[in-house]
């Protein structure tokens, strides 16, 4: 199995591609396909990626770094909270076949994700292998299981 930092980084790339595919479907007016792709993306990022980070990775980082971790993990948790609302709003825009609102939301979400992912990849992921007692094997396995589920 790949190291945990690589697994998480690759999951970012996979999720970015899913979001792009959803946006492409919206631009073509393929609304049912767009709804399916966005739900696949939402499930992967909210129930998979973010859930693993919030339940396992952030607490491990906080244990390792102590007080100095607080501002980073607070910011990342806040980012997740904001993103969950944006994903609901994007799903509503698709349901209402409102491409203009979807595109506005997409632009904001992609900006948030770009900055959020860079912070995680530069400041959080590099220390996970030492912060987690199993070097991230269980967390990595959960992410890989989600990826396999999405492909099946």
């Amino acid at each position, binding site marked *: 199995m790949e190291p945990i930092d690589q697994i998480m980084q690759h999951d970012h790339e996979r999720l970015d591609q899913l979001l792009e595919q959803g946006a492409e479907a919206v631009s073509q007016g393929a609304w049912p396909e767009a709804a399916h792709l966005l739900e696949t993306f939402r499930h992967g990022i909210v129930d998979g990626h973010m859930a693993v980070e919030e339940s396992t990775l952030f607490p491990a980082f906080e244990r390792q770094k102590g007080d100095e971790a607080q501002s980073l993990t607070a910011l990342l948790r806040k980012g997740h909270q*904001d993103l969950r*609302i*944006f994903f609901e*709003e994007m799903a509503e825009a698709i349901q209402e076949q409102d491409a203009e609102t979807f595109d*506005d*939301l997409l632009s*904001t979400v992609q900006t*948030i994700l770009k*900055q959020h992912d860079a912070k995680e990849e530069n400041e959080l992921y590099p220390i996970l292998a030492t912060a987690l007692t199993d070097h991230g094997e269980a967390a990595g396995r959960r992410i890989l299981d989600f990826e396999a589920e999405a492909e099946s």
Partner: protein
Amino acid sequence: MSEYHGCELLEDLFYDLDYVWVRPEEDGTLTIGITDPAQTMSGRLQKARIKKVGTHLEAGRHVATLESGKWAGGVPVPFAGEVMDRNEKLLEDPHLINIDPYNDAWIARVKPDDPAHALDNVSTGNVAIAALEEWIKRYGVQCMRCSE
């Protein structure tokens, strides 16, 4: 007004204890904006989108989205209601939020569906100020206000 880490905090406003302040108006609408520490954390704002007048929003949904070179995020409404007015000046110049977040740079006025309970999920006075000081510490914010 109190000040903490350079951030101005007004005791008479209501706060969601995150980004948003709320001010009750005489006509029953509630004006919404973002706080001084929130505008500092966002950086120099370059883009603002505000929901159109007449839009209905459920509690927690975004009445506006803001973007700077280093940050993007939403402005959630703490109660359900209809957008009655929006600050058109911000669409042209979102940087006004960095200059005067509590006055000229209000974002929207929203008429709550249930006026009696519209402020149930926001705090005011000393309780709010103490919670916002914790917020400022948590995110390590040191406020700076732009003059132009």
